[in-house]
Every structure is written in C-alpha cells, then in structure tokens.
C-alpha cells in the first residue's frame, strides 16, 4: 500500500480541480448522496447506534473532503456532506491518498483498514471509536465501491464504467512516471541526508569516549 506521502495522479487531479466552486460540486453530488443515504443509512445504523460525531474522510491533496454526520438526526442516523478540509471540524479524521482510499473501498472482502494503518498508508486522528464502528458497519453491510456504484442512476453507472476502463491504464502509466520523476528529484536530497547521518554518527561516537575528570576550582564550585 502506498504511503500517504508522495505525489500520485489522483492527488494532482485533485489539485487541478481546486478552482471548481464547492457549491457546484455540492449540487452535483447532492442527488447521489441522497440515494446513498436512503439505501445505506438504515443498515449502517445497526453498528453506529452508540456513536455521534462527524467522520471526515480526506483524500490527500483534494480540495474537498467527505464528512459523514453520525447520530445527528437520532441514534444511528447517517448523512454525508462535501466540505472544504479547512472548514470542516470533524470528531475523527481518516486521511490517505485518493488511490489508497479507493483501493480500500473497492475491496470486496472489505477494506483491510488495519493493514493500511499499520503500513502508515492511512492516518487516523480524533475519535478512534467512531472510526472503528464505521469500519465495522460498512464491512458488515457490504458497502463498497461496487455496491455504491450500483446505487447510482443507470446512465451514470455506464459513464463511470467506461471512464474507469479508459483511465485505469493511463493512471497506472502516469503513476510509474511520477514515481520515477520523484525518485530522480529526491535522490540528491537523500544522498545528502545519508552523508549528514554518517557524519553525525561519527561525531556521536567520537563524543562517547572516556571523559577525563575535570578539576573544578573552589571558586567555580561556589558559582555553581
């Protein structure tokens, strides 16, 4: 799983989408979110009924995040809004590259969120209980990218499938190129860090030799 650092094609795509007004994105997403909430909030509530708060899902580099409001309209209720990350005040935050988040959500066996977390590809901040309950809820209800996609209007599904098929190879090629480019750009910095580290170690080992006892004068002692 990729680390949350480093550029990826979808991070760049997010950056390019920065000028798009949030109000426009919200209008675009509203019917889709309504459908998802109608289908999923009931089943999800079974495992979220003891939770309240806002869980913000944040794709790295994107100018927006997905805020899930849990328990706002009664125990177990779930609603979703699009927010600017700088304006959102969540109870818990899950951050990863868009690629990692998509991969986790695409897994039909359920997201191996633990694996992503252990490998540092995914960061969690805030109310860990809310994150855990949400993760159990989506896994138990079978919510994943495929089931979410099936809840979309038919023409939308078709368009999504065609564009995913076309864009996937482009994304893969671009990812490889980006990785190479970053490697090239960063390798001088890495060598410099390695050189400094070696120097530091040498200095440290030189400094740990036997210390000669220092003779302290009475005057020095009196002055502390």
């Amino acid at each position, binding site marked *: 799983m990729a*680390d949350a*650092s480093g550029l990826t094609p979808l991070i760049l795509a997010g950056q390019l989408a920065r000028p798009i007004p949030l109000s426009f994105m919200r209008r675009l997403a509203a019917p889709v979110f309504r459908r998802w909430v109608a289908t999923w909030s009931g089943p999800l509530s079974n*495992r*979220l009924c*003891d*939770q309240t708060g806002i869980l913000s899902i944040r794709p790295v580099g994107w100018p927006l995040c997905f805020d899930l409001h849990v328990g706002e309209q009664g125990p177990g209720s779930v609603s979703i809004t699009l927010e600017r990350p700088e304006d959102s005040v969540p109870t818990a935050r899950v951050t990863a590259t868009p690629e990692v988040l998509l991969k986790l959500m695409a*897994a039909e*066996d*359920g*997201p*191996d*969120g*633990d*694996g992503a*977390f*252990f*490998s*540092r590809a995914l*960061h*969690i*901040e*805030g109310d*860990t*209980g*809310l994150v*855990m*309950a*949400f*993760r*159990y*809820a989506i*896994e*138990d*209800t*079978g919510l994943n990218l495929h089931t979410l996609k099936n809840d979309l209007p038919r023409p939308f599904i078709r368009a999504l499938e065609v564009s995913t098929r076309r864009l996937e190879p482009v994304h893969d090629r671009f990812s490889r190129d980006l990785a190479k480019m970053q490697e090239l750009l960063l390798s001088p910095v890495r060598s410099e860090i390695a050189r400094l580290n070696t120097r530091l170690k040498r200095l440290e080992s030189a400094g740990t030799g036997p210390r000669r006892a220092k003779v302290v004068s009475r005057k020095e002692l009196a002055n502390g």
Partner: protein
Amino acid sequence: MDNAVHTSGASTQGTASGAPLDPDHPMELVCPAGTPAALQTAIDAGAHTIYFGFRNRTNARNFPGLNFNEEEAARAVETCRKHGVKPLIAINTYADAEDDAIWKRAVDCAADLKAGGIIACDIGLVSYAAKTHPDLPLHLSVQASASNPEAVKFYHEAYGVRRVVLPRVMSVPEIAELTAAVTPVETEVFVFGGLCVMAEGRCSLSSYATGLSPNKDGVCSPASHVRYEQDGDVMVSLLGDFTINRFDAGETAGYPTLCKGRFSSDARTGHLFEDPMSLDATTILGDLRKAGVKAVKVEGRQRGKAYVAQVVRSLRDAIDGKTDASRSSGTTHLMEGLGHTEGAYRRDWR
C-alpha cells in the same frame, strides 16, 4: 468434544476445498468473527469452529460497533449449523461482584440458542453454567490462565469443563506435558494473531491507564481513550494521558496497546514489556499436533473480513496438508507490529 464438526464441516460448501480432513490429523481450526459478515467469511474460508461474543462487557472484544446482538447470534448459530461449523460463544470476562445479570443472561442465551459451547473464565459463571445448563459444553478461556494440570483437572472435575485454551506463555514441551496430564480434557492453543504477554486475565495495565480492563470491561487499551496525532512525519499514539508510541516516517504503526508501547525506565528505553510482534505458529503446527493439541485458534475478532479470509484459508490449507506448513503463512502484511514470531512456543520471543 465430538469430532463431528470435522467431518460435517468438510463435507459442505463451508470449507475451502470441500475435501475431507485427514482423519489422522484432526486438528480443529477455531476462528474469530466480530460481525455476521466476518462469520460468513470464516465459514467460506474453511473454519471448523467459529467463536463470537455479544455486544456488551461479557466478552473480551467489547469494541464499538463490534459483536452480535441476540438476534444476530441466533442467526449466526443457525448459519454455522447449516454449514457444519461449530459455533462457540465467548463469555470471557469477569462478572461484577454486585451484579452478574448480563453474564448470566449471556450464558442462558447461549444455552437457548444451542451454541456448540461457551468459552468462559469466571469460576462463578462456569459454575452457574454447569449447574443451570448441564448440556452446554464448557471451554475454559485463556483468560482463566489455567496452565498447570491441577488447575485444569479442577475445572474438569468440578464443572465438567471439556476444553482448556492455554495461555500464550507456554512452550511446546510444556503443552505436551500438560495435555498428556489432563486427558480427557482437550487443549486448544493460539496459533495466529496478537499476543498478550501477561498471565492472562490478570493484567491491569489497561485498568491503570484508562480505568477499563479486558478482564472486567472486555477492552484492553479501549478505543475511547485512544488518540493518534501527527507531529510532522511522526505519528504519536496516545492512550488516555500516556504517550504509548512515536512512529517515525516509514516505520510501521500499531494500535497503542499498553504492553506494546515504547517506554523509558531507569534501566533502558524501548519495548519494556514485550516485543511488539504478532504470533504466527503455522510452522509448528506439526509440533503442536504431536503435542496432542486438539484445536488451534486464531485471535482477532476485532479484525476485518480481509484478515479473516486470508488467515483462515492459509491455516486451513496448512492443516489439510495442502501447503507446506514448515513455511510461515505469508500473511505478514496483515500483522500488527514489526513482524511475526512463534511466540513463547519456541521461546524466541520476549
């Protein structure tokens, strides 16, 4: 303990292969399920037995959003039966002195559902179950920390306990000796998942830091007290008021379980309680079988379907002799900590 579960489990769609278990090697694979979806995954992956708990303090994985309500438990027992898998219900915390109603209710419910047995540790509760539901098979939980023949025999003679789950601090020769000494009580050992180093059921670290413990509340280092903070590239994990760990950039992270933290003492700085490794005893399944162990158990009811599917499939294949059990299970990516170990079984883990 009847062995029907092996043959019936193997003859249904609930197994990885549908192939019957080698009758010479009847080791039972006991798998965790935290949700009904994980239970189905464990069945599909080849579990012989599945254990789960209720949604309250009566089990040692009392995590937010996890576990089964009574209705789900009833459906789970039914699903297991349909697939020839044995359902066990974990009631493995210690009841409150002033009010043990939810623990007794859990035992009654397991009996009403005709579960394949309960896994319990509280001696009072074990006694209650034995008296009230004499037909309900009793397994002694690892939380009871019974690690010598006298203790195991006592539970067997007094309450009819049929199986004991051994603490994760014994070596293979010690297990062999104990197993031989306690026949007909069966022994079960953990072979995969998180390690708990203390005399189990007696650790108070979590209580000290958060007021909540695995023994009374079903949670060690509870999520409600966990916080992760990013300090630049460094991730800091906190439990209550305590910093448990700092993970540098690129270093694998872990849950802030107290005994797996890095601390400073006068003597040294580092992992003072235990090496933060996960258990994978796949390579010594043969030794455990030779030691007379009846069942091998996977830890991790709190883990997801991806973990359950891969770990259960890999262990089932090893047990059935389909893969080379002398190699580790290839599931390192699912493990918490810096790697895997054969734990105390080989004494190479501190």
